[in-house]
């Protein structure tokens, strides 16, 4: 995020796009509520009437899969209604002419035909956004999990550039990161193109620095992304997959293809805290300590380093992740030894000018330090791009537009619905942690849920909590129907935490060409009524028991499932 979470509540306009904070980040949603109470105008673009849409001044119920068309139309309005900041655009941006040429084709009326959002509301949204002294854009997976995602990210950032909404408090762009340390994992270089501190692997000077520090020659060629593994394995290019703290069989699209991939690799190493679905395909499983059993530093979604402590001793013959990896490295002939996490941290910040001042001592002093933090004693940087200097060779912000591309798999006669995956507020990611917590399990449990519009549910004669089959060209699973007045007709939404109602058996492996993020938000699906509900209930029970037994859990699952179904709404 260019700006911090606390700044959200002081923005005069919040422009929320494909982001449902109430379910994914309740404590960020809290800032949205505060902003509203402080008088901010709130504009929400989302096909669902989310909690934020419910309290918004303007809700734009967009048709799934049409983001780019709407964002181009926003830019169109900024130009044609002369709402943009000409002085800012001249001084701090580049690419205006090419940008203008594309977006001028996306009149609000043209966009209305594609997106379903009334042209008048598109204009109104931009008048509010451009007219506010501070406008903060927040987006989530509703932008990034499409086959056309990076283009939309650039398009939204362009709106902030066009209106001078960078380089000061309570403005900018907030792609609110989902997992607790997804920001940190990027920060420390678990990306195929950058070393820690976002230093390019193809930059000779940078590479020489790391070669010197690590004492070995390093590859000058950027690596491949994890989502490419199924494709590259098929081509015989990837032979070994070391999976650390992830469960791709549960979290990645088209689970059937992922299982097939894993079963045909020469080596699958799983390093985790729980036995998960991916472990079933592993050659070797390495047990690690969990949150609560070790210390370290996490990064918040707004670039804040925060130290976390160990609370209890781990049980069993487990080791901290860094120690396991060091042991493998040493055995492979590269001696790697650390006494503690602070030693590792110090090695890293010494290699990253952006993080240099964020020592454990300073983290302890300040509680949270948002990078950049170049020197010891520096309190961190709440917002980026001060002086409107951007991370480009010219330091100018790039204005960018692209033609809208529809999603890959459109609904048809056989699969007439759109399936999009979303989040459950009481569960997290692949659910190995929250699914083992009693209170959270009580709120929502297997087999999981499928949200459907009241109109679609009535047309299919489906009642709340009824079990249904959901299928796509890739698989078929069972889940409970949750009819809701907040859901748009023609689209169904499944949360991705469940084992029985596992929506990634159905999702499509269509990747954005740049980010390689899968199109989790759009594939064609169908829903079928199950006449014999007693049979269906038994099927769910048996299937769940079978999956748990395969993972070594022979005990009966707690009887929370039925209750959770009754509680959910």
């Amino acid at each position, binding site marked *: 995020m260019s700006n911090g979470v606390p700044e959200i509540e002081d923005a005069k306009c919040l422009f929320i796009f494909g982001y449902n904070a109430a379910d994914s980040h309740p404590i960020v949603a809290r800032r949205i509520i505060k902003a509203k109470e402080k008088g901010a105008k709130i504009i929400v673009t989302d096909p669902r009437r989310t909690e934020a849409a419910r309290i918004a001044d303007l809700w734009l119920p967009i048709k799934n899969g049409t983001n780019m068309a709407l964002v181009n139309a926003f830019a169109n309005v900024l130009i044609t209604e002369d709402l943009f900041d000409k002085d800012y655009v001249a001084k701090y941006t580049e690419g205006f002419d090419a940008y203008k040429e594309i977006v001028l084709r996306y009149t609000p009326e043209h966009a209305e035909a594609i997106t379903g959002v009334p042209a008048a509301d598109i204009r109104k949204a931009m008048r509010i956004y451009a007219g506010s002294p501070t406008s903060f854009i927040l987006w989530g997976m509703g932008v990034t999990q499409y086959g056309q995602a990076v283009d939309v990210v650039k398009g939204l950032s362009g709106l902030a550039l066009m209106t001078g909404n960078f380089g000061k408090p309570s403005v900018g762009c907030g792609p609110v990161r989902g997992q607790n340390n997804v920001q940190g994992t990027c920060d420390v270089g678990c990306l195929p193109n950058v070393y820690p501190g976002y230093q390019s692997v193809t930059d000779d000077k940078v590479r020489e620095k790391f070669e010197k520090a690590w004492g070995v020659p390093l590859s000058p060629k950027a690596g491949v992304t994890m989502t490419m593994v199924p494709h590259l394995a098929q081509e015989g290019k990837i032979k070994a997959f070391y999976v650390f703290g992830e469960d791709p069989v549960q979290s990645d699209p088209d689970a059937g293809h992922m299982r097939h991939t894993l079963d045909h690799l020469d080596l699958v190493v799983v390093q985790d805290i729980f036995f998960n679905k991916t472990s079933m395909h592993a050659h070797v499983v390495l047990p690690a300590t969990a949150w609560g059993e070790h210390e370290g*530093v996490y990064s918040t979604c707004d670039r804040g380093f925060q130290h976390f402590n160990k609370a*209890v001793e781990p049980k069993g013959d487990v080791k901290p992740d*860094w120690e396991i990896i060091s042991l493998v490295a040493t055995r492979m002939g590269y001696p790697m030894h650390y006494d503690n996490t602070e030693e590792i941290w110090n090695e890293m910040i010494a290699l990253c000018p952006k993080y240099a001042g964020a020592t454990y001592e300073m983290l302890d002093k300040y509680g949270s330090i948002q990078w950049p933090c170049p020197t010891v004693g520096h309190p961190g940087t709440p917002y980026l791009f001060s002086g409107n200097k951007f991370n480009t060779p010219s330091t100018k912000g790039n204005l960018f537009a692209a033609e809208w591309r529809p999603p890959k798999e459109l609904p048809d006669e056989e699969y007439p619905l759109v399936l999009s995956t979303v989040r459950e*507020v009481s569960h997290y990611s692949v659910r190995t942690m929250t699914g083992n917590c009693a209170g959270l399990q009580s709120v929502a449990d297997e087999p999981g849920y499928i949200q459907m519009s009241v109109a679609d549910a009535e047309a299919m004669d489906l009642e709340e909590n009824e079990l249904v089959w959901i299928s796509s060209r890739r698989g078929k699973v069972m889940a409970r129907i949750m009819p809701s007045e907040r859901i748009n007709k023609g689209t169904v939404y499944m949360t991705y935490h469940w084992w029985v109602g596992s929506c990634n058996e159905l999702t499509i492996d269509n990747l954005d060409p740049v980010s390689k993020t899968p199109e989790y938000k759009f594939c064609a699906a169908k829903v079928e009524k199950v006449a014999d509900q007693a049979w269906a209930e038994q099927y769910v029970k048996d299937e769940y028991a079978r999956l748990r037994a395969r993972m070594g859990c022979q005990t009966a699952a707690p009887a929370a499932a039925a209750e959770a179904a009754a509680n959910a709404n």
Partner: protein
Amino acid sequence: MAKKVLTVCPYCGAGCRLYLLVEDGKVVGAEGAPGRTNEGTLCLKGRYGWDYLNDTQRLTKRLTQPLLRDKSGELAGVSWDEAIGFVADRLTAIKKKHGPDAILCTGSARGPGNEANYVMQKFTRAVIGTNNIDHCARV
């Protein structure tokens, strides 16, 4: 009297600071701590998301020892030495036969922390010799 341990929530990216309440070496509760982003508040996951540490086996079970697939194809418990040796030998062999770019390692965007991820990318780059390091940022 419970001991309070200051930590950071392991769930979403909001980065809420919280206290784990520890009694007799066991976590018994959580409460909000003053943090930059959360200001003492917590949602349900932060407040009630710690009892998995007790290996409740509500969903699945904690891993408590290294496992290696035996001749019958079942995962069976082995020593750390054996497990580490197996991983090192197989990775070395695959690297030798197919080159370092035939191996892909992941970081973990969840509980392990920045230090463990730093070590993983260093391992991938310096020991395996590839930039094929990624994590679940896209999922």
